[in-house]
């Protein structure tokens, strides 16, 4: 759906991205992790075509519709904006459709409500609703859980999974919440100006580069979740190898 190869981005003599290979296919939830200044946002912006690469290529599927959720939505209080007007900023839609989408993201806001009274979490859901109104093939979420507490974050990731299933789209997100995000991710790319390691969450958490960047405690946290993913525990704590949650079944369906 979208594929970068050998991507290089240079800004002001500084090499921000170097030799980045990355691909996202339909039905996948791909998460980009990495320390501050690793170039995560630059990579996203380059993939979206908002910034030109200095080298390498980005290939997007023909007529790819992208839904984008910005990292932080700060709207000047002098700009009066209702929920309805925000949702239809770049594409018109009827009230029925808008209400339906607000229902999907579980935001029970009236269309005439001012967006200045919404909380951080509600604004994120509103952004998601706007992105989904485009019926996107690819959903790009830049730190979707900023300003959201941990319970809210878990809920939001569940919503993202449900969205992927309902809209049959691909999801590419940037995240800091290592522990929660991993449980809902098909593939992880660990970025630090170049791709340090990538793969399923369980593989990445054991990778020496990942340990070097995030430390053992992060890896442990990750392992707990991915552990849960591979198998279930029986009543006595024994491991039941019942099913594989590799999410591969989403790929061959289409």
């Amino acid at each position, binding site marked *: 759906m979208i594929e970068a190869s050998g991507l290089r981005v240079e800004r002001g003599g500084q090499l921000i991205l170097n030799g980045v290979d990355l691909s996202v296919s339909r039905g996948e939830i791909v998460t980009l992790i990495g320390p501050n200044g690793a170039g995560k946002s630059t990579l996203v912006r380059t993939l979206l075509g908002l910034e030109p690469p200095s080298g390498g290529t980005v290939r997007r599927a023909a007529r790819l519709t992208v839904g984008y959720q910005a990292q932080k939505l700060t709207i000047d209080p002098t700009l009066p904006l209702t929920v309805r*007007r925000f949702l239809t900023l770049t594409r018109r839609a009827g009230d029925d459709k808008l209400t339906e989408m607000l229902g999907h993201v579980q935001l029970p806001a009236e269309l005439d409500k001012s967006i200045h009274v919404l909380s951080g979490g509600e604004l994120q859901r509103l952004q998601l609703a*706007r992105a989904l109104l485009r019926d996107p093939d690819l959903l790009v979420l830049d730190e979707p859980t900023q300003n959201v507490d941990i319970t809210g974050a878990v809920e939001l990731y569940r919503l993202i999974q449900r969205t992927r299933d309902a809209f049959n789209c691909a999801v590419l997100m940037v995240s800091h919440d290592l522990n929660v995000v991993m449980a809902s991710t098909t593939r992880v790319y660990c970025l630090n100006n170049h791709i340090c390691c990538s793969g399923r969450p369980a593989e990445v958490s054991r990778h020496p580069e990942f340990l070097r960047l995030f430390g053992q405690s992060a890896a442990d946290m990750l392992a707990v979740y991915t552990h849960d993913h591979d198998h279930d525990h029986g009543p006595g704590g024994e491991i039941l190898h019942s099913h594989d949650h590799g999410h591969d079944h989403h790929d061959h369906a289409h």
Partner: protein
Amino acid sequence: MLDDFLTRAVIAGIGVAAATGPLGCFVVWRRMAYFGDTLAHSALLGVALGIAIGLSPTVGTVITGVAIAVALVWLQRRRTWSSDTVLGLLSHSALACGLIAVTFLDGVRVDLMAYLFGDILAVSRMEVVWIWVGALAVTCLVIAMWRPLVALTVNEETAQAEGVPARPVQLAFVVMIALTVALAMKIVGILLITAMLVIPPATARQFASTPEQMALGAVLAGTAAVSGGLSGSFAWDTPAGPSIVAAAAALFALCGAVRAVFPARTPT
């Protein structure tokens, strides 16, 4: 009808209010008041330039305004200096250079006060026509670019990701401000142009719940300020440009008081 100087002044002023209202909303939303000020201050340099190369002062003002705007955008991209510093640098050096430049014009006496504080009561019929042509052009452009401009103002990245071309729309926006400055210069003067861009939209904000309502409200508030200011100027023999701005400010305060007594049913 156009024979009466006061009628001409009101008609010209309303033309300017129609252009500054919607455009001023973006100036307020994008926190570009200082940017507007900088373009206004560069106008005097434009006047001198226009006269020096034998073109009209208005054409010179538009050209200088666009040049200054492009220089601003370029300097801000480099991020060596903060936006505030860049604006302060360009704003006042442009005004200083303009003041010097007009003294070098051979054989032409430029009425400095008219440019600095406006001379709306002296607008000729031709000037009224030109102000309306310019105001109509700006208004049509704003309407044509309204949706992309609002989307970019709310969040540039999201709008871009959704396919809104940012660069051309923003360039057109800057050109429109330069045009509006050239139009408004004759009415309220270089030093007070920013007031017409900021005060009417701020007045309208108190009653608006959508961007469109605010833009329409700003046109109404601007029109009221022009009519009220000119009436006051005529009645009490006060300078016209400053009277219009004072009327706009009084209207803002009045609306604020109304809102304080009758708060909005739902927050906006």
